């Protein structure tokens, strides 16, 4: 790597890192500048990869190399162009067709996939014999899993007033939710700190060379 380009790149990276960090003091022009540059680069990145990874191989190359064999691809291509017509007020209504197809397909896929993975499989995964494995911790754990799932679902049941006895399971449900939120809390702390460590490592290692 040419040393000038490498050094320049490094200093650019350091500049952008500090510009973002300056937000910690307060919102300022350096931060605003860095943020807009980020938005611009990110949009361009998407477009470039969209072109090379999707449009070119899955559509244009296919049509250019074997037009007859792929003539059916003209339909999605036409629908895609109709999508772009949304930008012109007069032809906006045409974009409803590709949108309807996309929304319809996604709705269908969501419906079957969530019904299987997040509903049915979760129900059957909770059908466990809590006493199957002799150890005390697994019995307690499995009982907690069954009770917690049932009470948690009941917490989200809105068709009954929660008074007297019927308030009990939903109270237990909320305790489980709180424990789970506590766990998420702990995990999120971990995640955010990691990201900071990554940036500091960049500054200390690649820029200042104080750690190896």
């Amino acid at each position, binding site marked *: *790597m*040419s040393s000038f380009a490498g050094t320049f*790149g490094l200093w*650019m*990276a350091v500049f*952008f*890192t500090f510009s973002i960090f300056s937000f910690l003091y307060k919102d300022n022009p350096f931060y605003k500048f860095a943020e*807009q*540059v*980020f*938005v*611009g*680069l990110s*949009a361009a990145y998407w477009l470039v990869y*969209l*072109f*090379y990874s*999707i449009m070119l191989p*899955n*559509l244009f190359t296919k049509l250019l190399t074997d037009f007859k064999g792929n003539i059916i691809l003209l339909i999605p291509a036409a*629908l*895609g162009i109709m*999508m*772009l017509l949304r*930008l012109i007020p007069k032809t906006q209504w045409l974009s409803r*067709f590709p*949108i*309807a*197809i*996309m929304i*319809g*397909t996604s*709705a269908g896929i969501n419906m*079957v996939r969530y019904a299987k993975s*997040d*509903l049915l499989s979760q129900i059957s*995964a909770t059908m466990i014999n809590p006493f199957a494995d002799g150890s005390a*911790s697994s019995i*307690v754990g499995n009982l907690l899993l*069954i009770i917690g*799932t049932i009470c948690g679902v009941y*917490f*989200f049941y809105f068709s009954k007033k929660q008074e007297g006895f019927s308030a009990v399971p939903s109270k237990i*449900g909320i*305790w*489980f939710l*709180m*424990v*789970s*939120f506590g766990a998420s*809390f*702990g*995990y*999120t*702390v971990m995640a*955010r700190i990691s*990201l*900071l460590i990554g*940036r500091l490592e*960049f500054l200390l290692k690649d820029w200042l060379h104080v750690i190896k």
Partner: protein
Amino acid sequence: MKRNLPLIFAFLTGFLVVISEFIPHRPFSLMISTLQNWFLIISGFAILLGQISLFQANLAKIKQKESGWYFYLAGLISFMIMLLTGLLWGTQEYKGILGHGTHLQSLVGSKPFDYLFDFAYMPLSATMFSLLAFFIASAAYRAFIIRSFESNLLMITAVIVILGRTSFGSMLTSWLPENLRFWHLPNLSDFIMEFPNSAAQRAIMISAALGIIGSSLRIILGIERSYLGGDK
């Protein structure tokens, strides 16, 4: 027609996806393959639409000299530079319009697009979210106050997990005898994750899944049609 035909399209595609999940016989699996392939291509155009709209919105802000318009101009310029370098000389693997730009590569060290990615995009993206580490620290100091039984429960779990997920936590309770291993912090935090946490997350999952099934059904049957926009 402008309104009802799209609704019929949404119904047909959605219904096709659902029944082909249950019917192995032809022609459904073939139809669904084709539809999914089309979906891929149309999604590409949808992203393109989104980026063009963003471009237009920023352009409008610059034209109207809105407050801070020069920042938007900087954004627009970086957009153009990244896009042009990407299209002209390609990325690490892909060939651009002008080929691989070997001369430029020897000058810069890598392709211009990758150079921008490594030294501008990557630090910006990585630093943006690392800000949150600082905010979580100040929130820990100023806002995470014990108030009710529920929030106590939350905080106690959080403390166990925060300790349990560090090397320090395992050191803290490593002296515990074999029959009390359950209370060893990493084990305790794994137990919390595996049972009570999974139970609550499963409950959230199930009720959210029911919501998604309901709203998908309403879209397929054309009961919910707000995605088509107003009647104007």
